[in-house]
């Protein structure tokens, strides 16, 4: 689970190494990645919205 989250976060940055990728693609289930990615994206939206609301004062 943690490794899936880590990979998704790495994707968000756009950086990933080959070893981790090998592992993702041989062990991970795609559904887990997709769900995690969508959840992480939503959290990212909330975070960004939070910052925007804070900055707007």
């Amino acid at each position, binding site marked *: 689970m943690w490794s899936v989250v880590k990979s998704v976060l790495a994707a968000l940055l*756009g*950086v990933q190494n080959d070893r981790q990728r090998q592992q993702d693609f041989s062990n991970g289930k795609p559904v887990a990645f997709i769900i995690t990615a969508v959840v992480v994206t939503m959290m990212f939206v909330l975070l960004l919205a939070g910052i925007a609301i804070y*900055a707007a004062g």
Partner: protein
Amino acid sequence: MAPKLPPQHSLQHSSSAVAGGQSQEGQSHYPHAAQPKGLMRWLLTTNHKEIGSLYLIFSLTMFFVGGIFALVVRAELFQPGLQLVEPEFFNQMTTMHGLIMVFAAVMPAFTGLANWMIPLQIGAPDMALPRLNNFSFWLLPVAFTLLLSTLFMPGGGPNFGWTFYAPLSTTYAPASTTFFILALHMAGISSILGAINIIATILNMRAPGMRMMDMPLFVWTWLITAFLLIAVMPVLAGVITMMLMDINFGTSFFDAAGGGDPVLFQHLFWFFGHPEVYIMILPAFGIVSAIIPTFARKPLFGYASMVYATGAIALLSFLVWAHHMFIVGLPLTAELFFMYSTMLIAVPTGVKVFNWVTTLFRGSISFEPPMLFALAFVVLFTIGGFSGLMLAIAPADFQYHDTYFVVAHFHYVLVPGAIFAIMAGVYYWLPKWTGHYPNERLAQCHFWCSIIGVNLTFFPMHFAGLAGMPRRIPDYALQFADFNLLSSIGAFFFGASQLLFVLVVVLCVRGGQKAPAKAWEGAVDLEWSVPSPAPLHTFETPPVFHRAQSHD
């Protein structure tokens, strides 16, 4: 973009297909007894190579049609005053230029390349849904004949810009708008069907031994693009259906007088429109990521990062749409949100550029025509990215918005971006399609003319925009005259030099230096294991994919 017609299938041809595990047995299983000849062959074809060629020829034709519209615009803008066309027709030309280039030139070109190359790159015999493939192509000529015919209708064709903001495109639109909506619906259906087909092919038909992580980046980027298409084309369909209702059935989605909201249109349009931008650039990333390692003779730097970054860009592309709407009066919080998200999407895009440059570092680089275009892509796309970064700064966008600065920006990412990548791809794969190398001298000439033309056309637009020239105007104040003069000269030069491209392609189809199966020294992907030209049917027996061909 007009590759040689793949040879009609015959026993000789397929028996020459040595690689990819083709066996003697494979040949006797052709399902078609007698192929239709002439026009019917093309109407009924279900072969991915033939359909790919049709897409590419269609796209090239539309590229010239859209280009002529652009030249009408540039001719009128050659100097101040109204000389050649009336403002009404001018607006139709700007609108049609945009619509044709986006929906009929760039998108079908990528679909054509996908049709040709995805089965070859993953070792599949054809697309997963060949009949659907035929249908999704033949929708396009119908759709765009209908769209172009609106120019001859009473009241003229669409004149409200390719973004067709309501209520200009509803209450105040010409009568032909309903036809425009139907044409766009058909093009949208074609895109969705194409995308479904590509996803089905990639997920189900990879050669034994090829895992997702072994796929070339062109396949990866197309997979993600296809999901984007399926996600956003229905939004476009929705918004044009709402327009249809407003125009013909008395609803008021976009009419404040009836309780609607014109800004709602823009939200819906750009929720489609921004991912659409990435639909037009992600496959280009894939092509460039194939070409640069080939001619640098060095594996792509950061393949894993590239795949992940493409995924990230796809997801982020749904979160930035309102940066096209910074001046419609969004609440402050929304402005900030979209400014931040837009700035962040620059990061994974920048990472890709860094990766290409690092791939070049300590390579062994040669400069064949595909490489020239790919390198120009990296430089000029990055310049477009820089102006994109500037546009992301919301306060500054209050000055940039709807000026020629924006026109310069998106032309830099689309012309030397998407279109140069398509041309790079065509030069790269022409030997595979036709069995001949493109004429190098002519191709180089085409390259240098294009480079000069594109920069002469679009670079001065930055200055015109900063100095205050709004877009979509048929006549302008005198201080913009010099920039427009240069742009117009550049546009005609660029337009004329594309005739060279046609010449190169036609010559290459007819003959030229023979290409071996592996046409480029540094090429590694699976398509280079089938003979050049690729026979009509390839990989009928799945090839065995060797790990050595993968990207590690």
